[in-house]
Structure formats: C-alpha cells, structure tokens
C-alpha cells in the first residue's frame, strides 16, 4: 500500500475550480506529506467537497494543477484512481445486489478479483458477516457505511479521501470506523478528512486546514494546539470577516 518514496502524497498549486460564473475553489496551495492526516474544516459551501473531488480526479481543475501520490492530476488520472479510496455522502452501492456481490464487482473492476475467503473476512471485520447475502437495499445507512468501509479494506488505498465521515453514524459503525482509520494511519496511509465537526476531526489530525469561500485561509500542523485554540482559530479565520 503506497509507495515508499518521499514525494508528497498531495501537492497542488494554485488549484481552482469554477462552476459557470462562480469560483468554488480559488488558488489552493497544498502540500501534504505521506502518512499524515489532514483535517479540512469549513462551513457548508466552502468548497471542501469540491476540493476532495478534484483530488479524486472526479472534477478537473479550471486552473492550476498538481500531483497526487506523485501522479499528475490531469494526465495520469488512472494511476491516481487505482491508489485512492473515497468515502463520501454517497455509498456507490447497488441496492439490488447483495453485499458480497457489490464487493465482488468493485474488486473485479479494479483488476483484483478476490477469493470468497477474502470477501468473507472483510465483511466479518465490518460486522456484516450475517447479512453478506442480503440485498443492500435492505441495509440501514450504518450498514451501508460499513460496507463502504469493507470495500476500502479490499482496495487498500494509499490515500483516503473522507467527506463528512462522522455524520449520521450509529455507535457500532462509529467504533468500526475509528478502528479502521487508526489501523490505516498506523500503516502509514495518508488521509484527508473534510468535516464541519471540529472535535471529531481534531482527534485524528496531524495538520489542520480551513476553507472559506473556496479559499484556503488557514493551514498548519496541529502540533500542540488544544481544541480550544482550534475553535479560536476557526472563529477568527472562518467566521470573522476578512480573507
């Protein structure tokens, strides 16, 4: 999982993305080393989702560019896609297929068809062993989220892009998610977590960044910062006027 070289996991320069007449992202400069977790804070509409989508190669930049895991954003998209994992608002699951079939489909499409044993194992780890052969349509949102996590366990990405992972999680799923993230970070994976939950993101952050109106208004290592200080920074840069 992931290369062992020293190139940054994500480096973007003057990244911009427009939607018709407005800018969703303006002049974003970001440099994230491998193995670090960046927490992206900001209110709704600040551009967090857009930034994640651009890094995931789902959206092409209107201006600027960069590299993800050493591969160019606009020219080497396939290489990027085979190394990243995305967990967002949507689960990308087919309601009429079973949990097992959904996983098998993605594994096959990613060029890594896996054995029944491996499938059973990841489903078990996400507490879905009992419903492996039920249609996803019958799943609760927590179960769907866990299935998405199981899919990530199969993919073993080097970079994880998480969009609001803390919203609407039941206890069981939250525990499994935290365990998954901890293990991922321990193995040296890089992650970018977009959230508007300061406390949730704070616990796992190596670096903290804040977006406001499509611009990056704050970006620092977490270091010795306390949660209180984080709140202060947030109030200053995002909720106050300026920038």
């Amino acid at each position, binding site marked *: 999982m992931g290369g062992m070289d020293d190139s940054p996991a994500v480096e973007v320069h003057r990244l911009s993305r*427009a*939607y*018709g*007449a*407005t*800018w969703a992202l303006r002049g974003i400069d970001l440099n994230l080393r491998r193995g670090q977790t960046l927490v992206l804070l900001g209110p709704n509409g600040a551009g967090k989702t857009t930034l994640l989508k651009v890094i995931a190669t789902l959206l092409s930049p209107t201006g600027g560019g960069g590299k993800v895991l050493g591969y160019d954003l606009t020219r080497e998209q396939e290489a990027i896609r085979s190394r990243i994992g995305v967990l967002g608002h949507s689960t990308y699951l087919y309601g009429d297929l079973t949990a097992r079939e959904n996983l098998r489909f993605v594994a096959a499409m990613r060029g890594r068809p896996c054995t029944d044993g491996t499938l059973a194992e990841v489903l078990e780890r996400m507490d879905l062993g009992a419903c492996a052969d039920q249609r996803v349509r019958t799943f609760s949102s927590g179960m769907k989220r866990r299935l998405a996590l199981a899919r990530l366990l199969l993919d073993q990405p080097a970079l994880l892009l998480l969009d609001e992972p803390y919203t609407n999680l039941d206890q069981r799923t939250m525990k499994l998610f935290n365990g998954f993230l901890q293990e991922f970070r321990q193995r040296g994976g890089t992650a970018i977590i977009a959230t508007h939950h300061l406390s949730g993101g704070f616990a796992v952050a190596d670096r903290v960044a804040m977006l406001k109106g499509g611009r990056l208004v704050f970006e620092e290592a977490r270091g010795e910062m306390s949660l209180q200080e984080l709140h202060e920074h947030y109030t200053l840069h995002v909720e106050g006027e300026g920038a």
Partner: protein
Amino acid sequence: MTAGWVRSLLGILTLVALAAGLYLGLVWAPPDSYQGQVQRIMYLHVPAAWVAYLAFFVVFCCSILYIWRGRPAFDQVAYASAEVGVIFTALTILAGSIWGKPTWGVWWTWDARLTTTAVLLLIYIGYLMLRSFVEDRARGARYAAVLGIVGFLDIPLIHKSVEWWRTLHQPASVMRPGGSTVAAPMLLALLVSVAAFTLLYLYLLSQRVHLERLEAEILERNREG
C-alpha cells in the same frame, strides 16, 4: 482569424465575390434550355448546399480537435460553424423547394440528396439544442463535440440508405436538382457563386467566433470579480 482587419477584409472580399456571382448567375449566364429562368436558382441552391456540408465538416474537424486537445478555440469555431451552417442548410432546402415547384410540380421530393440535407438540418438543430439545454458551457461543448463527430460520420450512411430505399419505391428518375449537363458559361457562374458563398461563410464564421471570444472574456472577467 478574428482580428479586426481580417474580418473587414473578408467582408469586403465577400461583397465583391457575391456581387460578381449574382451578376454572372442572374444576368450573364444563359438560361437553361429546358427549365428557363427558374433554373437560375441553381446558383443559390448549389453553393448553399456546398457551404452547408462544408460547415458541418468544420464542425466535425473542430469536434475531434476539441476532444483531442481541449482548447476552447476549437469549441468556439465548432459552435459558430454550426450556427452558420444551419442557416445555409435551411437556405438550401428552401431554394430546392422553390426550384422544384415550377420545374417538377412538387414542393418536395424524397430524393436522396434533398432528404439527406433535410436530415442534416435536423442534426444541426439537435446540435444547437443540445448546447442551449446544457447549462454548463464546458459540458455542453463536450457533448456537442461527440454529436458533431457521430452526426458527420452518419451522413454518408444516411445518404446511401435513403438512396437505396428510394430505388425501391421509385424508378430512377431524372429529377435530380443538379440538372443534366452544365454548359461552360453556367459552370463559370456556378464556380464563382460557390467561391462567393464560401467567402460569405468564412466571413460570418469569423464574426461569430469573435463574438464567442468576447462572451468568454466577459465571463472570465465576471468570475474574477
């Protein structure tokens, strides 16, 4: 291509060529021995048809270039060419109809060439509608480029299929809007008309592309602010 002086020069050349073409076609060339004066509409119909297909060929080439290279200029030319092309296509059909009524007694024949031109008109309209319906300009450009490629490659197939279909339902007739043989002075007038219409096309195209560029610039400026 859209520099002010180029457009003005094109405009002047077009005027001159059109004047020459009109004179040669409507006054100088002898009337057709069978069809009389009505046949003069050929000097309008044939060049318009030529431009209609030329414009679509330009749409085709620019669509491929846009897909391959992504430069907005290619998309601008494609869009402009489609807008100019649709006018000439409509003109072709109109002229064909006007020619047909007194000559063969019908406003419309399902002749392969005329039918294919009518289908071309439908494809053009589809192209323009697609662009206007898609709000995001870049996405509209991508979709239209695909339609431009598919549509152009389809035209010869449409023509062939209509031709074969026609021979099943009607014996091969002399109802060919191209006329039988074209005498030498008529040929000269025709060629001048074709050249004039081509210049007209280029002139309109350059004006349209210029407008597109201005619009794009305004959009950029609004965004910056």
